[in-house]
C-alpha cells in the first residue's frame, strides 16, 4: 500500500517536471510570418492590446515601432518608414534620420539584434495637421535584415476631433465603488472618506491584523468607476485620468496622487489614470483607485475632473466634472469626547454609589462655605464672563482669551484655591464645580450635555491633580501651605500652581476636542496650543499663587 503511494507520488512529480520542461523547450508562437528573420510591429497610434487605433486630426500621437529577431543569427536591421506629409514627426531621437520628399516624411534608422528574441522599439511623437480631412491614410515601412526585405503598409484611420468625441462618451461617473466598479449603496454618493494616518490608526491596524503598512500611501482610500460608451464599430484604446481640483481655482489638490508619484513626471503626479480598451459598440465600466491622505487633502467640496483621451494621443475626447465632497474621519475629538464622558459617568457613578460616605466627610459648615464660595464665583466669574466674554469675543475674535483669561482664569483659580486651602478635602473642588454648574443652569439656563461635560471634566481633572500633588492629602505641600510662614510657602505654592496649571491645561484641551466634535467647529493646532499654554496653564498658575495668598488670609477668619 505504502509502495503504491510512493509510486503515485513519483509519477505525479515526473508529470509536472515534464510539463514545465515542455513549456520551456517548445518555442512561443512568433508574431512574424514564417520565414521572416525579424518580426515587425508598427502601431499608429500606439494602442492597448496592439490593435490599430484611431488618430485625430490636430493632435499629437505616438507611433510605436518594434522589431524582434526571430532567428539564431545576428540580424542587422535597416528600417525606413514613410509617413504622409500631414503626419509630421516631432522630437525624434538621435537614432532616426528624417528626410522630406514631395508628399511624405521618410524616417530611417538601423539597429543590430544579436540573439534570438532580442528586440528594439521606439515611440515616435507625430503631430497630425488640423486641416486634414477624415479618412484612411497609409503609412509604409521597409525593413531589411541581412539582405532580406519586408514591406508593410499600414492603414491609419483618421477622424476629426468632433467625430471621435461622438464615438466615445463618458456616460456616468460613479463614486465611491468597490474595486470592480460596482456601486456600494452603503456609502454616500459622490463622497470620499479620508483615512487617518494617525498612530491610533496604526495600532488599530496592528490589532485587527490588517498590517502595518501605510494605508493612505499604498492602498486606495476608495474606488471610482467611469462608464464609457464606444459607438464606433472598432475598439477604442483610451487613457482615462481623474484629478481632484479646487472648484474655484481649478488647480489640483495636494495629496491626491498615486503611490510612488515621485517616480512619475511632474504632470502626472497629481492624477490617477487607467489605460483601457473599450470594445466597439459597447459600454465599459472602468474602475480607478483613488489615493489620498488625511492631513494632506483638506476636507470640503471639490471637483473631480475625469478626462478621456485616445491612447497614444494628446487629443482630449471628453472632460467631465463631478462635484464631490471629501470628508475626514478625525477620531481624536471623538475618542476624547467619549473618554471624557466615560470619566464623568464613572466618577459621578462611584460618588453616587458611595454618596453617604462622600458627604459624611463634609461638615455642614463646610458645605455652606462651598455653596457661598459657589455664589461668589458665580457673581465674580460667571455673570461677568457671560457678558464680557461674548463682547470681547466679538471684538478680538478667538484671541479674546488673552484678555478675558486675565479675569476668568485668574479670579476663578484665586477662589478655588483659597477654598481648597480652607477645606483641604478630596471632593471640595468637585462640589464647588458642581455648584458653579448648577447655579449656571438654574440662573442662566446653561443646562446642556456640553456645559455639563466642560464643568465636570475641569472639576475632575483638578481634583485628581490636587490629590496627586499632595494638596488634598497629608503631604509636605499641604503642611507647608497650612503651617509655614509667608516666606516659606513659595515652594509649596509653586507645586500647587503646577498642579492646577496642568489640570486646567488638560481640561482646556479636552474642552476644545469636545467643541470640535459636538459643535463641528474648526481650530488651528497652533491656536489650541497657545490657548492651552496661556489661558490653561499660565493664567491658572498665576491665579493659583494669588489664591494661596488669599486662602491664607481667609484662614484668619475662623473656620474649622
Amino acid at each position: 500500500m505504502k509502495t503504491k503511494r510512493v509510486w503515485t507520488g513519483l509519477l505525479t512529480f515526473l508529470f509536472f517536471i515534464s510539463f514545465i520542461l515542455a513549456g520551456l523547450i517548445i518555442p512561443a508562437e512568433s508574431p512574424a510570418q514564417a520565414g521572416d528573420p525579424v518580426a515587425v510591429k508598427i502601431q499608429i497610434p500606439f494602442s492597448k492590446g496592439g490593435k490599430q487605433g484611431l488618430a485625430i486630426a490636430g493632435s499629437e500621437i505616438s507611433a510605436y515601432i518594434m522589431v524582434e529577431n526571430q532567428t539564431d543569427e545576428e540580424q542587422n536591421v535597416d528600417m525606413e518608414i514613410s509617413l504622409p506629409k500631414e503626419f509630421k514627426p516631432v522630437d525624434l531621437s538621435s537614432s532616426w534620420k528624417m528626410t522630406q520628399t514631395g508628399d511624405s516624411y521618410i524616417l530611417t534608422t538601423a539597429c543590430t539584434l544579436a540573439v534570438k528574441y532580442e528586440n528594439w522599439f521606439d515611440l515616435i511623437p507625430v503631430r497630425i495637421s488640423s486641416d486634414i480631412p477624415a479618412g484612411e491614410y497609409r503609412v509604409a515601412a521597409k525593413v531589411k535584415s541581412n539582405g532580406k526585405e519586408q514591406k508593410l503598409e499600414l492603414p491609419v484611420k483618421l477622424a476629426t476631433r468632433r467625430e471621435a468625441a461622438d464615438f466615445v462618451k463618458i456616460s456616468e461617473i460613479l463614486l465611491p465603488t468597490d474595486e470592480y466598479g460596482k456601486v456600494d449603496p452603503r456609502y454616500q454618493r459622490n463622497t470620499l472618506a479620508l483615512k487617518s494616518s494617525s498612530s491610533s490608526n496604526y495600532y488599530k491596524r496592528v490589532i485587527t491584523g490588517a498590517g502595518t503598512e501605510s494605508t493612505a500611501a499604498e492602498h486606495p482610500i476608495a474606488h471610482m468607476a467611469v462608464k464609457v460608451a464606444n459607438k464606433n464599430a472598432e475598439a477604442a484604446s483610451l487613457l482615462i485620468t481623474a484629478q481632484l481640483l479646487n472648484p474655484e481655482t481649478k488647480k489640483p489638490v495636494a495629496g491626491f496622487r498615486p503611490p510612488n508619484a515621485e517616480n512619475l513626471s511632474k504632470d502626472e503626479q497629481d492624477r490617477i489614470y487607467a489605460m483601457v480598451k473599450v470594445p466597439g459598440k459597447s459600454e465599459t465600466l472602468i474602475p480607478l483607485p483613488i489615493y489620498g491622505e488625511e492631513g494632506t487633502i483638506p476636507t470640503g467640496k471639490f471637483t473631480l475632473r475625469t478626462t478621456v483621451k485616445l491612447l497614444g494621443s494628446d487629443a482630449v475626447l471628453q472632460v467631465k466634472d463631478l462635484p464631490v465632497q471629501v470628508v475626514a474621519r478625525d477620531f481624536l475629538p471623538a475618542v476624547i469626547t467619549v473618554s471624557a464622558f466615560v470619566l464623568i459617568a464613572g466618577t459621578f457613578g462611584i460618588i453616587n454609589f458611595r454618596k453617604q460616605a462622600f458627604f459624611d466627610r463634609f461638615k455642614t459648615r463646610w458645605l455652606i462655605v462651598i455653596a457661598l464660595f459657589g455664589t461668589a464665583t458665580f457673581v465674580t466669574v460667571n455673570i461677568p464672563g457671560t457678558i464680557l466674554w461674548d463682547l470681547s469675543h466679538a471684538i478680538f475674535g478667538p484671541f479674546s482669551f488673552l484678555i478675558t483669561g486675565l479675569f476668568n482664569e485668574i479670579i476663578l483659580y484665586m477662589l478655588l484655591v483659597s477654598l481648597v486651602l480652607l477645606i483641604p478635602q478630596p471632593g471640595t473642588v468637585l462640589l464647588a464645580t458642581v455648584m458653579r454648574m448648577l447655579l449656571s443652569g438654574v440662573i442662566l439656563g446653561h443646562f446642556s450635555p456640553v456645559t455639563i461635560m466642560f464643568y465636570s471634566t475641569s472639576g475632575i481633572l483638578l481634583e485628581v491633580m490636587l490629590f496627586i500633588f499632595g494638596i488634598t492629602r497629608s503631604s509636605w505641600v499641604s503642611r507647608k501651605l497650612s503651617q509655614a510662614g509667608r516666606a516659606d510657602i513659595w515652594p509649596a505654592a509653586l507645586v500647587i500652581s503646577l498642579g492646577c496649571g496642568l489640570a486646567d491645561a488638560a481640561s482646556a484641551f479636552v474642552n476644545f476636542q469636545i467643541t470640535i466634535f459636538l459643535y463641528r467647529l474648526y481650530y488651528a493646532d497652533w491656536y489650541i496650543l497657545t490657548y492651552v499654554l496661556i489661558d490653561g496653564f499660565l493664567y491658572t498658575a498665576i491665579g493659583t499663587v494669588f489664591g494661596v495668598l488669599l486662602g491664607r488670609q481667609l484662614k484668619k477668619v475662623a473656620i474649622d
Partner: protein
Amino acid sequence: MSIAQRMIRPTVNATFIHQLDARVKIFLLLATSVLVIFLDNPKSLLLLFVFVSAAALSARLPAKNLKILAVLVLLAVWGTMFSQALFYSKLPRTVLFVIIHPKWPVIGELTGGLFVYKQGFTYGAVQALRFASMLTLGLLLSWTTQPRDLLLGLIHFKVPYEVSFMTVTAVRFLPLVMNEVRTVLTVQRLRGYRPLKSSNWIKLIRTSLYTLKPILANCLRRAGTLAVSAESRGFRVNPEERTYWRGLEYSYMDRGVLWGGTVFLVGIVAVKVVYLLYFNGVYYTPFLRELYGLAKNWL
C-alpha cells in the same frame, strides 16, 4: 436694575411657557441641547432657532430682557463667525485678507499664516445657530421659572439632597453677594480702581484680591451662623426620608409637551444614528433609504 440683576431675575406672567412645569422645561432644554448636537443641516438649525425665538417672544418677556437676549445672541453669533472665518479649513475657501503673512519671521512660520476666509463667515453663522438656540432657550428657562421650582425639579432628577441644599443656599444668597460685590467695587473705585483703564495687570490682580477678600470673609462668617441654624432644624438628620412642603405636579399640558418632546427627540436621534451608521459604512439596508434621504436633506 443692572444688566446682571435683570439677567438673573425671573419674570412672572401667565403665559404658556411660564406655566410649564420646571421639570418639563429642564427636559426641553436638555432635549434641545442634544438636538443641536445631532443636527447638521443649516435649514434645520435655523428652523430650531426660529422656533426657540418664537417661544421666547410668546413668553411676553419685558423689552429690556429681549434686548439683552438679542445682544447676547448677536455677540455669540458674531464671535463664532469671527473665529471660524480665521480657522475654516475646508475647501473651497477664499482669502478676504491676511492677518499674519506666512512669510513673516517667527509668527508666520509658527502659525503658517492667519487669513480671514469668506466661507468661514458663512460656516460660523450656521454653527452659531446651535449656540444661539441654546442661549435663547437657557435664558428663557431662567426668566420664566422660579429658582425654587428649578431646584425641586433637580431633586426630582435625583440630584443628592446635600447638593440641592447647597444650591438653594447659593441661590438665596445670590442677591446679597451681588450687593456686597457692588459695595466693595464702589469702595475700590473711590480708591481709584479702574479695571478697564489700567494697563498694569499685576496691580489689577492685586486689586481683585483685595476686592474678593471682604466678600469671602463675609461668606465664611455667614457660613457658621447658617450651619448652626440648619443643623438645629434637622438638616442631614434623615436625608433619605425627607418630605417637601411644596411639590411639583404635571398638568395634562405638561404631559403632552413631555411626551411630544420625547417622541420628537427620540425620532430625530434614531434617524440620525441610522444615517450615521449608513454614512460611515457600518450598516445599510435598502429598506431605510427614505430615512437616509430625509436625514441627508434635513438633519
